[in-house]
């Protein structure tokens, strides 16, 4: 079956197999576990001991593999729905089609609705990127003379760019270079032309 929250492709078989495990939980517990999963997706980390408490009860016992499966299924549902920009109501309808009980579907839908925007913002900050500019430092010098020319008398601009590359481990580097007045004028006009096109 093709689902929109899987990007108009077939739902993965392992997810359909985990629907039955997920159906055994109560909707309140699903909501609390979803909150933990969303914390992990937003980069705040998963409190595993809380999840352990929520998955042990007198009525049903879950093994470690079941707990992992539940976390993986919820992780996939939230991540995939946010990736393909699915609305709450659409997600609700499609989860019902997979066979999940209605109360659990609405618990997942409510959690998703609250967190969809922060999730998409967090994910767009993690897009593959080249080094990004953090800060620009500049200084204008006036060169008086040097060992090759006695009287130079020309202005020069020194630029120091602070760059960071989140896709390669958030390393910070600095790029420093110098320009004379004409080159600097050319640089500025080219950048202004590019800015207009944006």
């Amino acid at each position, binding site marked *: 079956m093709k689902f929109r929250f899987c990007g108009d492709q077939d739902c993965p078989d392992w997810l359909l197999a985990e629907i039955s495990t997920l159906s055994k939980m109560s909707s309140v517990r699903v909501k609390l576990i979803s909150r933990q999963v969303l914390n992990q997706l937003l980069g705040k980390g998963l409190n595993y001991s809380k999840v352990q408490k929520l998955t042990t009860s007198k009525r049903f016992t879950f093994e470690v593999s079941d707990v992992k499966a539940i976390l993986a299924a919820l992780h996939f549902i939230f991540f995939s729905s946010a990736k393909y920009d699915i609305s709450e109501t659409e997600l609700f309808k499609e989860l019902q089609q997979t066979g999940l009980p209605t109360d659990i579907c609405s618990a997942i839908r409510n959690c998703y609705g609250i967190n969809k925007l922060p999730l998409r913002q967090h994910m767009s900050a993690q897009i593959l990127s080249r080094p990004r500019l953090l800060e620009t430092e500049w200084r204008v010098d006036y060169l008086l003379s040097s060992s090759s020319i006695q009287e130079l008398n020309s202005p020069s601009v020194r630029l120091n760019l602070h760059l960071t590359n989140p896709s*390669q481990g958030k390393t910070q580097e600095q790029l420093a270079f110098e320009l004379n007045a004409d080159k600097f004028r050319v640089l500025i006009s080219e950048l202004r032309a590019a800015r207009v096109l944006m």
Partner: protein
Amino acid sequence: MPVASFSKEIFVDTRLFPTLSLELFNEFLRIVLENLKHGVVAKNKYSKAAEALKVDIDTITKSVQSLSEVIIVMVGKQVQTENDVKQSLLSLSFIEDHIKAFTEVYSTNYKDLRQMLTTMSLRMPHYHNLDWRLDVQVASRCLRNHVKPSFMLQLEIKDANDQPQYHLLESDHATLSHLCDKLEDALKQSQSTHTKRIARYTQ
């Protein structure tokens, strides 16, 4: 039916064990497993044992090392059944009780030790992650109002010491789909009759 055989140095260094009581032998086994799982203990921790047994620290260290080597050689050769373990240890002149205690400890820890040994073998740089994005170039310094789509890929590779290396690549649609076709071909080869025949023979 793999049976392990040992070098002469191990024969020499395991001479201490038949003289020990069962308790002491179990202590030695415990220390050896600690060493294998968490790293070697410092030599001065053996001083108490050395005093109690009235031998010097070197002898104790060598005995511990030889027992570790015995275990590793046996795990490496996949010695699994009790009989094979017994036959391997007979050549070292171990006492019956010691052999029983050894077999018990060996079989409980066999899987963990085997996994540990596989992670310690030669490692090539291996794939870790592939990140991608689809860009469209709308204008450049020389040319305005054109549409040029391209894929940017970041291949993250981990080398033998688990240090990440990043390779940034650019590709157009045709190259990327050719790459995908070739990789799918390679995957399909693992289902071919030839590969299945080889897999059957090696197992």
